[in-house]
């Protein structure tokens, strides 16, 4: 005779989740800029085991990126200033997409522009491609027509940008928010009000590091984006702030996730799925391991469907 506990253990917990108009086999995706175009990781983990992957950010034209040094390690994290270097829409469609079409997991393409028109043009062209399940807009890009201020910092500008892209993108459209703001909730609301399907929270946090011997910044552009475990508490806080305000679109949580427990914290805070970024450099097979760890946690806690965890945070309020 099997005890009830045994039966529970035999039944695999349901891991599939839906976020922003896309169904995923589990809530673990890989983050833009940390997973190339997927192909590079094919020999290192099973792409089919992942919920999905997000490509390196694509712009209408190829971009060269910033001068070196571009990265440096910091306490429990790293700074990067890659400069959004990428192959451009055309080369992406020609050289990278054929692999992605058959890679066995959901594909979101991260994209950006330096003007309104570039965003709209890039979004429309990418959404038209077969094999692209959805788009993620990176709005942490300087607006060259407005003094280089990031599009994603002002809710009004952001709302207009989302609306313009929404009009041409007939596929799921997610917006990846910048944490370099004092009001993440207004940014998320601007996305929801203008037709975005989900928000990804968060992109990197602006930071810097100094080499005291040479008295120079450790990366050439002086400031860079901080990622890794160091930013996780901030990312969690922002996910939860948006969730608490009942913004009517789902959240994809990102920032410093290293293991299944970190991922579950994001689900509890209100994310419907998560992305693993810097950790793929630390341990290139980690996204697959994190899926297993979430499953193990669900089993151990008697959670039969991972959906039960989403937003299940108890604050006692």
């Amino acid at each position, binding site marked *: 005779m099997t005890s009830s506990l045994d039966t529970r253990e035999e039944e695999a917990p349901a891991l599939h989740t839906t976020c922003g108009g896309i169904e995923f086999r589990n809530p673990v995706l890989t983050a833009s*800029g*940390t997973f190339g175009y997927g192909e590079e990781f094919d020999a290192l983990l099973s792409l089919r085991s992942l919920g999905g992957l997000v490509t390196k950010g694509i712009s209408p034209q190829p971009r060269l990126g910033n*001068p070196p040094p571009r*990265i440096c390690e910091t*306490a*429990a994290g790293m700074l*990067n200033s*890659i400069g959004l270097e990428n192959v451009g829409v055309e080369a992406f469609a020609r050289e990278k997409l054929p692999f992605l079409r058959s890679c066995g997991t959901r594909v979101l393409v991260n994209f950006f522009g330096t003007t309104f028109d570039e965003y709209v043009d890039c979004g429309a062209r990418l959404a038209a491609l077969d094999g692209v399940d959805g788009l993620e807009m990176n709005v942490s890009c300087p607006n060259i027509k407005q003094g280089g201020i990031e599009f994603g910092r002002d809710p009004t500008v952001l709302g207009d940008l989302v609306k313009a892209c929404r009009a041409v993108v007939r596929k799921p459209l997610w917006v990846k928010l910048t944490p370099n703001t004092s009001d993440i909730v207004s940014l998320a609301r601007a996305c929801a009000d203008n037709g975005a399907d989900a928000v990804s929270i968060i992109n990197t946090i602006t930071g810097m590091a100094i080499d005291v011997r040479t008295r120079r910044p450790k990366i050439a552009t002086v400031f860079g984006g901080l990622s890794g*475990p160091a930013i996780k508490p901030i990312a969690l806080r922002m996910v939860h702030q948006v969730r608490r305000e009942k913004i009517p679109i789902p959240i994809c949580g990102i920032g410093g996730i290293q293991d299944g427990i970190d991922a579950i914290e994001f689900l509890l805070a209100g994310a419907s799925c998560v992305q693993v970024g*810097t950790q793929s450099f630390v341990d290139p097979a980690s996204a697959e391991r994190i899926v297993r760890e979430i499953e193990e946690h669900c089993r151990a806690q008697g959670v039969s469907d991972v959906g039960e965890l989403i937003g299940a945070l108890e604050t006692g309020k």
Partner: protein
Amino acid sequence: MRYFDARVIENRSLGGGYFVLRLGGCESLTGSRPGQFVMLRGDWGRDPLLPRPLSLLSVAHEGRADLLVKVVGKGTALMERSPPGSRVSVLGPLGNGFPVPSADVADLLVAGGVGLPPLFMQAESAGRLGMANGSEMLYGARTSRDLVLLGEIRALGIALRLATEDGSLGRRGRVTDELEARLDHWRAAASPRRLRIMACGPREMLWAVGRIAQSCDIECYLSMEEQMACGIGVCLGCAVAARTRPYLYVCKHGPVFPAAEVMAYAPAASTSQSEGGAQ
């Protein structure tokens, strides 16, 4: 390229902060080329976070691989203290490697400080092909304490010439002084074999070697270093300015580059003498 767990089977201190880490379980590295490297991370929790790039020193049968490491910071200090049995994760082999030795070419292998490993492995591979006696290694560092594995290098059958900045062993001066002297010698000897230079060491040394090669119109390869996060061409962190494209990636297009590819952006020759030796 594979991602796998290996074990430290021996950790041999060479003094002066240098040590040789012998790993077992590296069958996946069989067939690696001199100049290729691995991303290595110990079982040390979250700090330091990123794996560290290390060149292969030697890859032998039965999954054995040797690395020569110098302690410069947290990660290398933790490696130095890793006892036999410690688990490490390894991603590799990565990068391209040096051109293969050839019977009609005399290779001058120029190593500065902890830039030795890829050239050691190149000499080892020349030895295996029966070509070690046609090449020579020029090895320089700050002091004699920074010149390591001398017996092992000689055992490869390659001529070895040393330089130290303090004159404690070999020529007093920089390894590039020795290189110029050897080039004079080879030209005077009017050898029928073509000369070729391969170098690895601190960046100032590489630029100096590159300039010498350019001025003598000699084929030259430089093994470069840059800060790395992924080692496989996805983070785009390890960019170096290049001639044929704005940037090349050390981990993917290198670490070995034809000197002409990267020299175009080298700073003009400086009078600074201080960075010619060890890192």
